[in-house]
């Protein structure tokens, strides 16, 4: 068993456990958006950043992908964490202005408004839950990310109706912003 501390609480976990899993187990709350317990961690939303100390060096690391090791010291709510978490919430609010879910989550951490404007907000946080659920659970790989940078979108191949899609609706189900909807098609 691996021994470490989160917020000064001494904890133990199996090797390969992530900080987030350990914190959830211990009832310590860390905000997440792109994490889902049944999917592989992805590390894209950066909400779960926590401060760790390794060989005397403090740094911020994503709790959802970072694995615990012996002697690891984790702090989930330091000033440094809070400062950047608030900025991330502002960015998410700017990107997904209509998402009630993100507004609620942001409000929990004291962020009500955003000072940021983005050229082209589209209510998709690019968390990749839909892409991953389609690949890992439905095993269809009907959708994926296309393009890069600020042009990144979630699409079917060539943005055409996908023969891979069986209409299971898992993508719409996991979508945290309500960007994906399911429509009945004729055939």
């Amino acid at each position: 068993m691996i021994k470490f501390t989160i917020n000064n609480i001494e904890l133990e976990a199996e090797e390969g456990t992530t900080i987030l899993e350990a914190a959830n187990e211990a009832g310590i709350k860390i905000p997440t958006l792109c994490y889902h317990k049944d999917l592989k961690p992805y590390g894209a939303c950066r909400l779960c950043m926590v401060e760790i100390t390794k060989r005397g060096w403090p740094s911020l690391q994503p709790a959802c992908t970072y694995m615990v090791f012996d002697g690891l010291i984790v702090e989930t709510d330091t000033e440094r964490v809070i400062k950047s978490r608030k900025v991330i919430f502002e960015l998410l609010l700017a990107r997904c202005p209509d998402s009630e879910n993100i507004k609620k989550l942001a409000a929990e951490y004291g962020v009500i408004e955003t000072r940021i404007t983005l050229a082209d907000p589209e209510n998709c946080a690019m968390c990749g839950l839909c892409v991953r659920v389609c690949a890992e659970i439905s095993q269809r790989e009907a959708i994926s990310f296309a393009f890069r940078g600020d042009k990144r979108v979630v699409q079917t191949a060539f943005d055409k109706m996908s023969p891979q899609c069986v209409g299971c609706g898992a993508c719409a189900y996991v979508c945290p912003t309500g960007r994906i909807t399911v429509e009945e098609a004729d055939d």
Partner: protein
Amino acid sequence: MPRIGPEDLERIGREAKNDICAKKGTSGARVLVHMGTCGIAAGARSVMTALADEIEQRKAEDIVLVESSCAGLCSREPMITVEVNDKPAVKYVDMTPDKVKDVVAKHLVGGEIVTEYAFSMGGERVLQGRNVAYRLNVMVCTCTNCVANGALQIKDRLDAEIKARDLGNEIQIAPTGANGLCVRGPILVVQPDGISYQSLKPEDIPMLVEEHLVNGRPVKDLMATPVDGESPIPATQDIPFFKSQRLVVLRNRGVIDPSKIEEYIANDGYRALAKALTEMTPEDVITEIKNSGLRGRGGGGFATGRKWESTRKHDDDMKYIICNADEGDPGAFMDRSIIEADPHSVIEGMAIAGYAVGSTQGYIYIRVEYPMAIERLNESLEQAKEYGLLGKGILGTNCDFDITIFKGAGAFVCGESSSLRASIEGRVAEPVSKQIHATEKGLYEKPTVLNNVETFANVPVIINWGADWFAQIGTDKSKGTKVFSLAGNVVNAGLVEVPMGMTLREIVYSIGGGIPGNKKFKAIQTGGPSGGCIPASLLDLPVDYQKLSEAGSMMGSGGMIVMDEDVCMVDVAKYFVEFCVDESCGKCVSCRDGGEALLEILKRICSGGGKEGDLELLEELCSAIGDVSLCGLGKSLPNSVLSTLRYFRDEYEVHIRDKKCPARVCKPLFVYRVVAEKCEKCGLCFEHCPSQAIKWEQNQIAEIIEDRCTKCRICREVCKYEAVITE
């Protein structure tokens, strides 16, 4: 081609040198056309064609034409080097097909240097291992020609004289291959004085040793080119651009034919690999690299020896060596030039790494936009395999190592280690968390060494000349040299290699020749999009890893962009952020949306919409983006903004408060106006304006119509009376 053993290298090298000498014949010559991608872009191909045509027409078959690499001074290309048998090499710059015909007629056939186009004479100063330890290095040519003329007797006599005077610790005698003067052999060159002696007899030697080597008085009568015989053109080593450079990585640039492995072998090539395989254990190699202090040249500056050691420690049935030749920074061309100039130095470095860590498979990840470098690599890998320098049983030992080229589609983020691996594995090039190092689980989950092109090119030199020798170049924690691509507002744009610790001022002014048009230096951007801008007040900063990061920039892979007073620093920050936003993979929120947020604010400031609180918001965003982003791209994305805010905050403030751009770059923030008192009513501005934005009639003062003006600057440039101003 036969597979060779370690003992064959010297013979192949000697044969290659003799071959060069013999091909030149007695009256002939060798012309090196510097055909890097840069040279070709400047027109080197048409120069090459013109040369070939002219030589054919004149039936001068004993003139050898060689496609060589960039000689570094890219702003004066096309460039050629003419080596006529008994004269020092002459470099010609700014060549055209017409000029080159002149050179053939007058220089190659007529024997007269064309001083009008000639730039310099002699070679560059290469940082030779042996020179450093010894006060003088006496090189005795032992090519077939010189040996036939008695070179060995000369060497024996020299050895005896040196021994008699007990000067063995100070002066080294080194046999070398042909150097071009051999019809007047035996030849002897004294370095670093750069003085050649010719037609020597053994009885000349005691006097020569006493006068030159002991008393420092060169013996004119025996010299090949008397120093006082007024040379019409300066020596290459005296040209400021070349003088302060020290070539370690670029040791073979522009002097060998990179398409011939034999020429590389003739210049100490593959000796380090042979030495490693036959005289050193893998641990010895790693220790040597560790002791040399070599740090990665790809950006991060990680200790190379430690990386190798860690990879060696992780036992596995398969390990990989990857050479990172993605080179995605705008304005950077170091790695491309190294590969084009000396591909085998990279291949040899990788093979040594393979032996050291226990890997049998290497990859070179190179962007597809580098067709010439790829062709060179393909050709070179082929040759190395034929000689048995790659493949199974290298140099007759039981060491196996092979290299495959992987062509990337050319995205900045593909240079990042985890994206690069994903790209080779056939996945989308998106970074992932790096809690477990690649040295443990890298490519295909196997222990992997990833190093930059330049890092590998340093390796053979360190093995050949020793860690101690390497470690004495540079500063405390930054050893060796660094290759930079010097670009922007600088007279001599090009590829330069300098010892670590040289000041920015020396690089910009001595090597770069300063700023064109007597403009003032404003800043230098180092480290590519991840780096920052350093202001004039820090020109005396020594360039090394620590000093650059303390100044808010970084070494990066070696881009250096010089900016003069006409550059707007807010605009510069905007440019680099825009590049990063474009090149971001888009996976993590902080890099993708954070970058875009920065860009939106900068765009607003540059178009007159800046408001109070913008700078604080920029800083807050920068701090968060740098702290939480997934990979190095996002982590370093804020640097251009942070460094310009640190050194040029007042410029941001003028943009926001006064809605003015002091450098007159941000178009919405200034207008052109005609000063009535200065206008001579000539109408030139009216005539040249492409947008019909000028009102003018005969004998009338011109006037600029603001809504039509596109601020193209032409009116201001054509006005002879400086009557057009900006405000």
